[in-house]
């Protein structure tokens, strides 16, 4: 089955634009109006339309907040909870990135970031913050709770839990920068990923068999919340990028990104029953979806093809074989590989990964190669590390051009 086509772009509600406030003072112009970045954006438009722009897109995904965290510039708990610290860290990274001029297709933007827990927290999940890693949500429905406990959950307010912070961060960013930077969607774990943060994962997965009605009830609540939140954040952002990871440019109205790591964890039948209908709802609402998943999800290809307007797939090429994704989806949707966390398919570093991807991909259309530093910690954002990475990308592109 082929992915169903949606209109090229879903209209942004006109009320959003009419309510938008002009930047304070009127002197600040969005970076997207600058020739360099508007050229980048034109490339992304062509990319999402699966046009050939003469080369694949590529990106070193310096998600501003995560880079700040990795480099230890700001302690993670502060970075994720203090809007001023988060904004300053992001602006610092953006300025540095602009100076470094890596030559990739990244479009500078800001992103309110609270970790993978933001939607779960709206249901009342207690969130713990840590110095060394991203936050953790404690489920509100525990392992030993009756599945019917799910009916006690009220539909959360759009600003409940960390979501309220993310909206406040958005307002603050827009106000402080006078709308100079577009604002990207906060971390959006998809309906199922969020549901098994709210309901203890083991019990939730068992309930898919024993209590399907209760599972659907939670999926309904989560999906409704996602739709309401995305609309709210979008309404507060003069320029909204509906993408949370990797930090790609998705034109508003051409879909949203979701992390759907459940793809790798559950089988096709359960995905079809408990996830696909809700992902399709998001797709209908926002003009498509770009799906991110870790792990190996080859067994879900048929389900991915059933997603209405699947805009793109982001995955670890060391987890799901790149050639499998390419052969099934090339020319039908955008393909955005990176080197995954899991090393089931071993690559001897970025050089081999790039060569493999660029030799397997027989044309440029809809291909964006994400390249992450092999080093961890502060050296990940070290200029020498990044210069080496850029060199490797150039070599791989040249190698491909030579055939």
């Amino acid at each position, binding site marked *: 089955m082929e992915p169903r086509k949606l209109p090229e772009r879903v209209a942004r509600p006109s009320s959003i634009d009419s309510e938008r406030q002009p930047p304070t003072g009127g002197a600040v112009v969005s970076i997207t109006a600058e020739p360099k970045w508007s050229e980048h954006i034109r490339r992304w438009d062509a990319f999402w339309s699966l046009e050939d722009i003469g080369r694949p897109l590529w990106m070193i995904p310096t998600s501003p907040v995560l880079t700040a965290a990795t480099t230890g510039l700001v302690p993670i708990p502060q970075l994720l909870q203090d809007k001023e610290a988060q904004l300053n860290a992001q602006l610092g990274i953006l300025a540095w990135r602009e100076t470094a001029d890596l030559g990739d297709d990244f479009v500078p933007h800001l992103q309110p970031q609270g970790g993978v827990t933001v939607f779960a927290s709206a249901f009342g999940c207690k969130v713990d913050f*840590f110095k*060394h*890693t991203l936050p*953790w949500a404690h489920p509100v429905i525990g392992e030993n709770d009756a599945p019917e406990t799910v009916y006690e959950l009220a539909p959360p307010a759009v600003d409940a839990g960390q979501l309220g912070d993310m909206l406040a961060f958005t307002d603050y960013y827009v106000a402080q920068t006078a709308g100079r930077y577009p604002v990207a969607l906060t971390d959006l774990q998809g309906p199922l990923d969020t549901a098994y943060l709210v309901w203890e*994962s*083991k019990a939730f*997965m*068992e309930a*898919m*068999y024993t209590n399907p009605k209760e599972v659907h009830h939670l999926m309904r609540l989560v999906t409704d919340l996602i739709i309401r939140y995305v609309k709210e954040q979008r309404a507060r952002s003069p320029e909204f990028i509906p993408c949370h990871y990797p930090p790609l440019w998705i034109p508003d109205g051409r879909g949203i990104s979701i992390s759907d790591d459940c793809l790798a*964890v*559950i*089988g096709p039948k*359960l995905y079809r029953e408990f996830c696909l209908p809700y992902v399709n709802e998001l797709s209908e609402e926002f003009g498509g979806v770009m799906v991110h998943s*870790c*792990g190996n999800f080859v*067994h879900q290809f048929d389900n991915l093809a059933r997603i209405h307007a699947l805009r793109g797939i982001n995955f670890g090429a060391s987890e799901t074989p790149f050639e499998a994704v390419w052969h099934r989806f090339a020319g039908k949707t955008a393909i955005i590989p990176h080197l995954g*966390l*899991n*090393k*089931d398919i*071993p690559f001897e570093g970025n050089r081999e990964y790039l060569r493999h991807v660029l030799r397997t991909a027989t044309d440029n259309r809809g291909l964006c190669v994400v390249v992450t530093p092999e080093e*961890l910690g502060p050296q990940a954002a070290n200029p020498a590390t990044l210069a080496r990475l850029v060199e490797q990308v150039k070599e791989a592109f040249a190698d491909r051009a030579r055939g």
Partner: protein
Amino acid sequence: MVDLQKLHEAILNGDAKTAAAVAQAALAQNMPAIELIQKAMIPAMDEVGRRFACQDYFVPELLLSARAMKAALEPLRPLLAASGAQPAGKVVIGTVKGDLHDIGKNLVAALLEGGGFEVIDLGVDVAPEKFVETVQKTNANIVCLSALLTVTMLSMKTTIEGLRAAGLRERVKVLVGGAPVTRQFAEEIGADGYGENASVAVALARTCAKLATGG
């Protein structure tokens, strides 16, 4: 006469209620507990592991089967204890310090339990000292360490060093696993085995237990 095939199928299908009922009925007919385990339950869990490995089963199916296995084991436990039957091995398992991811660890724990091991699950964010202390207290012969983050993998090494410093390293086999962990890494830190998935981890634990008992 109770049909052991029914017990086998109940575990395969993750039907805890039927699995427990068949086990009860078999005991009522004086069928030896060990026979139930060896002829129906362990083969069923082996088949679950095989189906998981070939992507016929996924995490939810595996969890349900493990739960059915546990339900069937419940009525057998007092009899096994009275007969002096030993578990396949005693395992201390946990996600290492600094890491809070537990789906993989829970899977391995469930499969180990289903495979007849006594499992002491220390949960997540477990400090090396806690592993050491628990091995000392429980006399466990296998330690399973899980990590999902590259930054917490090194805690596996610290834990192994802790076991060595406490004079316990020769007494326990250490198995490691988790998304960023590789066989090479396992060798580098001096682990005894690397499980690339839950069923491999259980097979490794069985080999370790056999080696320990000379079986």
